């Protein structure tokens, strides 16, 4: 509360703060509005779909999608495909991301290695990775090897570039501190470069996993047979839209799961780190 009064030539401003915290609805006004918008949209969709104002084949009612989704979870209908998709993401991430981690650390740490390899990376990085699919199939055939190769390529570049930048941005004073106490070049790498670049490395892992997920789903759509991507594609081809939407929900949950995993990793690996996020 603020009141201002003027009497002759003086101004008095009085302030009284209202006691007690505002109630729960006032405090979470924005959050509640967000939830409200989501529910309102779903409700409108539900009504439009049930009254056939929009095609119930293209846009099946949300209640049916959600029922199907939980059904799928309970019966384990999507379990096999989900496991396959996850294992493709992780094996691609392990191969591509792992190679990128080693190479990125070396490129960040050694000016010489960076000068030699940087032009090559700069030339290969802008290629849309999915465009490599025909070439990869020619080389690796139409089996699992091609899928893994594609996911690995997708996971490689974001990890490489983030790791390299992570090492390059290390404050030179940190190296001087360690060097001053007699650190060898290997000490500088292991005790300064590596821990100091961890926040960027984890940022790279996040982008790398995201890219691995995208490529995995894409490759599964093209190859068919197995994985969530193939289920998505098949449900479109057979016009089972309820199935398609519920698999879409599962794919989103996989994405959320990966993000959550990295948040956990961040808390374990870099508890000292304050919010400086790597650029996306």
């Amino acid at each position, binding site marked *: 509360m603020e009141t201002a009064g003027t009497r002759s030539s003086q101004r008095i401003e009085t302030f009284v703060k209202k006691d007690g915290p505002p109630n729960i609805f006032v405090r979470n006004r924005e959050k509640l509005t967000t939830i409200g918008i989501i529910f309102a949209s779903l409700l409108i969709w539900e009504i439009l779909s049930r009254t056939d104002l929009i095609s119930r084949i293209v846009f099946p009612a949300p209640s049916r999608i959600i029922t199907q989704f939980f059904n799928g979870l309970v019966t384990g209908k999507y379990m096999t495909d989900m496991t396959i998709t996850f294992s493709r993401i992780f094996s691609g991430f392990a191969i591509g991301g792992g190679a990128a981690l080693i190479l990125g650390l070396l490129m960040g740490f050694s000016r010489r290695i960076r000068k030699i390899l940087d032009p090559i990376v700069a030339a290969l990085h802008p290629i849309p990775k999915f465009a490599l699919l025909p070439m990869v199939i020619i080389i690796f055939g139409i089996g699992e090897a091609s899928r893994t190769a594609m996911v690995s390529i997708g996971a490689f570049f974001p990890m490489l570039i983030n790791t390299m930048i992570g090492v390059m941005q290390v404050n030179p004073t940190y190296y*001087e501190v*360690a060097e*001053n106490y007699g650190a060898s070049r290997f000490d500088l790498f292991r005790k300064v470069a590596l821990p100091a670049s961890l926040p960027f490395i984890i940022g790279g892992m996040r982008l790398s996993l995201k890219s691995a997920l995208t490529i995995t789903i894409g490759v599964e759509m093209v190859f068919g047979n197995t994985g969530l991507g193939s289920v998505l594609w098949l449900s479109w081809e057979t016009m089972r839209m309820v199935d398609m939407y519920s698999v879409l929900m599962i794919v989103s949950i996989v994405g959320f799961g990966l993000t959550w995993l990295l948040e956990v990793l961040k808390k374990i690996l870099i508890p000292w780190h304050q919010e400086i996020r790597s650029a996306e």
Partner: protein
Amino acid sequence: MNIIFKEISKKFAEFTDREVAALDKVSFGVEENEFVSIIGPSGCGKTTLLKIVAGLIKPDTGQIQFSGTQERPKAVMVFQDQGLLPWLTVLDNMGLGLELQRVPKAVRREQVLEFMKRVRLDGFENYYPHELSGGMRQRVALARAFLTNPDILLMDEPFGSLDAQTRIILQEELLNIWRTEQKTVLFVTHDIDEAILLSDRVLVLTDRPGKIQEIIEIPLGRPRDLKIKDTPTFIEIRWHIWKLLEQEVRKELKLS
């Protein structure tokens, strides 16, 4: 540890085709356990001089003599800030010097904890640097430097980023530790009062390239405290140093 600098010169390549001289034939000597401050305009090569003693930079020409030793003496540097590694706790930061000298973990831990108690940092061993105030961080940095028992202590504006009150307290703390753990100290600062209060001698450098302008003896007894700043001698020296620096700063600002 007694250090003699003979005609130390250093140039840096600023761009590929241009060189900037940082130090130009600097010669002077530092006595065993002497506290010498180096003061001068920004960019006059004060930090470069410290890094040369630390072995982090090699001069282009010149010579440094360390008395009484064949090996390179242990010269430990305390930085203005960011001298603590943010991913290490206070305990690990303080033990870093010992760790890099391959002191076993258990021994290290014991020594660090004991020293922390001595400088009243106990209880903070599991804190990360970002959880401490700027003043606390510099106390840790200072303690770490003393802990490795160096022959020479090199301080690069260690209190430069602290507020005026914290700075005074830490200057006193430094004098206290130094009194019991005598070391040869080279102390770079911008702060004239700080230089006089702490030092036996003050080295005034010129604007870039750094040359010695004057070496000033501080004829004040020890132990010293803040009150010394009001004595006529102190005031006279402060004025003298300011007059030396003023010309250089004006030159640098193109004001003269």
